[in-house]
């Protein structure tokens, strides 16, 4: 942490307003002035995207070809079932998101601005947009995102905004060059937009006062599962998984592992996870990343393989069904894994483990989007984190309830 030893940096930055209206927003955050050079400011701040991929925000902004009818999009679709941070931010502080959208829109000379949200958030966002009608340079269009896992995938958003379905597109050209209707497109997660709005007000040094050198700033975490008070809280990067669980009221019982990053993330076993810092460097050895800040605590009396099988079924069902390896491969993968997750012994054999690994390698990287890749990541982390359970299943027993 960059804070002076002995002092604590207040990490309550994004969710501090008491009501979502413009007056409360201005009272708490003060006026917004467009910085002279937003790209340099964001570069200094070291902000990375909060939608999962953690791409450096300044780089994306710099790459958008200005002066060619660019479009800027705030992506609040949040198709990840285990994540609630975007909807929380949009309900509590929509004006921070809209400030960020206005800032990037001005920076690239955009002629269209969109905020893409699930249906139940359309009213609150439309109200916020209405409050700003005479202050933003371009009128913000509110577009409804369908309630599917892939609806928030970058090119699925492009497809939807170009008048098609919210399904991923083939990636041959970078969207900063050619995106919606062939126009240069800047798409940021709504939380990223919120951070941009705060950095513009308070500066890069302020932003970096929390977090770590490589992962500066704060992030919104959604913590659920075996915790007393599942919910969304803001934390600084570098805080431990244990601290995130504490903010959610602490564990409700013994926990055997945590799922970090969501359904395309990775399982990290306990007790190691407890003291693990939430940062890219710290999580990388476990095949995990902070991603969109999702943490799900798996209770000790559950079966990790069964829990994973359930997620794999969901992911298979959520395939866009456009690409063969995903459409056919994921259900086959989920079905085969399910056999491993099911006891008695007749179901689980070493050949089955090999078959699961073969199928995983087969679908990995073969699709228009990263849905198969993310599914494989989760599966591989389960085979590693729950290797003892796997051994038990292979000998006809289950460790569920024995921990």
């Amino acid at each position, binding site marked *: 942490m960059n804070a002076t030893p002995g002092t604590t940096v207040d990490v309550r930055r994004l969710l501090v307003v008491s009501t979502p209206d413009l007056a409360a927003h201005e009272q708490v955050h003060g006026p917004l002035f467009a910085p002279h050079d937003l790209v340099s400011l964001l570069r200094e701040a070291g902000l990375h995207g909060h939608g999962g991929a953690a791409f450096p925000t300044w780089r994306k902004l710099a790459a958008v070809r200005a002066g060619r009818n660019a479009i800027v999009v705030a992506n609040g679709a949040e198709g990840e079932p285990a994540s609630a941070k975007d909807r929380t931010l949009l309900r509590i502080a929509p004006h921070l998101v809209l400030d960020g959208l206005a800032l990037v829109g001005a920076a690239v000379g955009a002629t269209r601005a969109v905020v893409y949200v699930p249906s139940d958030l359309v009213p609150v966002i439309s109200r916020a947009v209405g409050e700003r009608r005479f202050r933003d340079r371009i009128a913000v269009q509110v577009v409804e995102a369908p309630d599917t896992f892939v609806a928030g995938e970058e090119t699925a958003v492009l497809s939807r905004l170009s008048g098609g379905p919210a399904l991923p597109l083939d990636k*041959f050209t970078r969207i900063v060059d050619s995106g919606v209707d062939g126009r240069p497109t800047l798409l940021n997660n709504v939380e990223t937009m919120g951070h941009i709005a705060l950095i513009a007000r308070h500066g890069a040094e302020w932003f970096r006062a929390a977090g770590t050198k490589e992962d500066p700033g704060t992030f919104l975490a959604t913590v659920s599962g075996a915790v007393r008070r599942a919910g969304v809280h803001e934390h600084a990067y570098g805080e431990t998984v244990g601290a995130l669980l504490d903010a959610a009221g602490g564990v409700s019982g013994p926990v055997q592992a945590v799922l970090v990053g969501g359904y395309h993330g990775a399982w990290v076993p306990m007790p190691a996870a407890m003291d693990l810092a939430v940062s890219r460097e710290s999580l990388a050895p476990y095949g995990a990343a902070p991603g969109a800040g999702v943490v799900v605590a798996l209770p000790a009396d559950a079966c990790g393989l069964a829990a994973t099988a359930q997620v794999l079924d969901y992911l298979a069902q959520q395939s866009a069904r*456009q690409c*063969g390896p995903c459409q056919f*491969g994921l259900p*086959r993968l989920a079905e085969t894994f399910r056999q491993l997750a099911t006891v008695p012994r007749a179901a689980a054999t070493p050949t089955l483990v090999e078959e699961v690994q073969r199928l995983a390698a*087969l679908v990995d*990287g*073969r*699709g228009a989007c990263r849905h198969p890749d993310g599914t494989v990541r989760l599966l591989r982390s389960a085979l590693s984190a729950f290797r003892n359970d796997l051994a038990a299943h292979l000998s006809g027993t289950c460790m569920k309830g024995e921990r």
Partner: protein
Amino acid sequence: MSQRVDTGSGTATLHIDWSRCDRRGLCAELLPELLDRDDWGYPLARDGSREVAVPRALQRHATEAVSACPLLALRLRRSR
């Protein structure tokens, strides 16, 4: 539409648009050195890569595969 073959020293990669591919299999037939087929008949890069590297000796065949695909699911990306 014919692709101009690059006879220079550039490397090329074959890009598969998975959202268009319908496992007709002409590409695997024309480029057996580079492509196998998976359990369901979809092209499978033998080198396991996402974007299939096409050595210069095979670039003409790759160009034919691109033209032959009934779904227009292939593109040859050349770097100069």
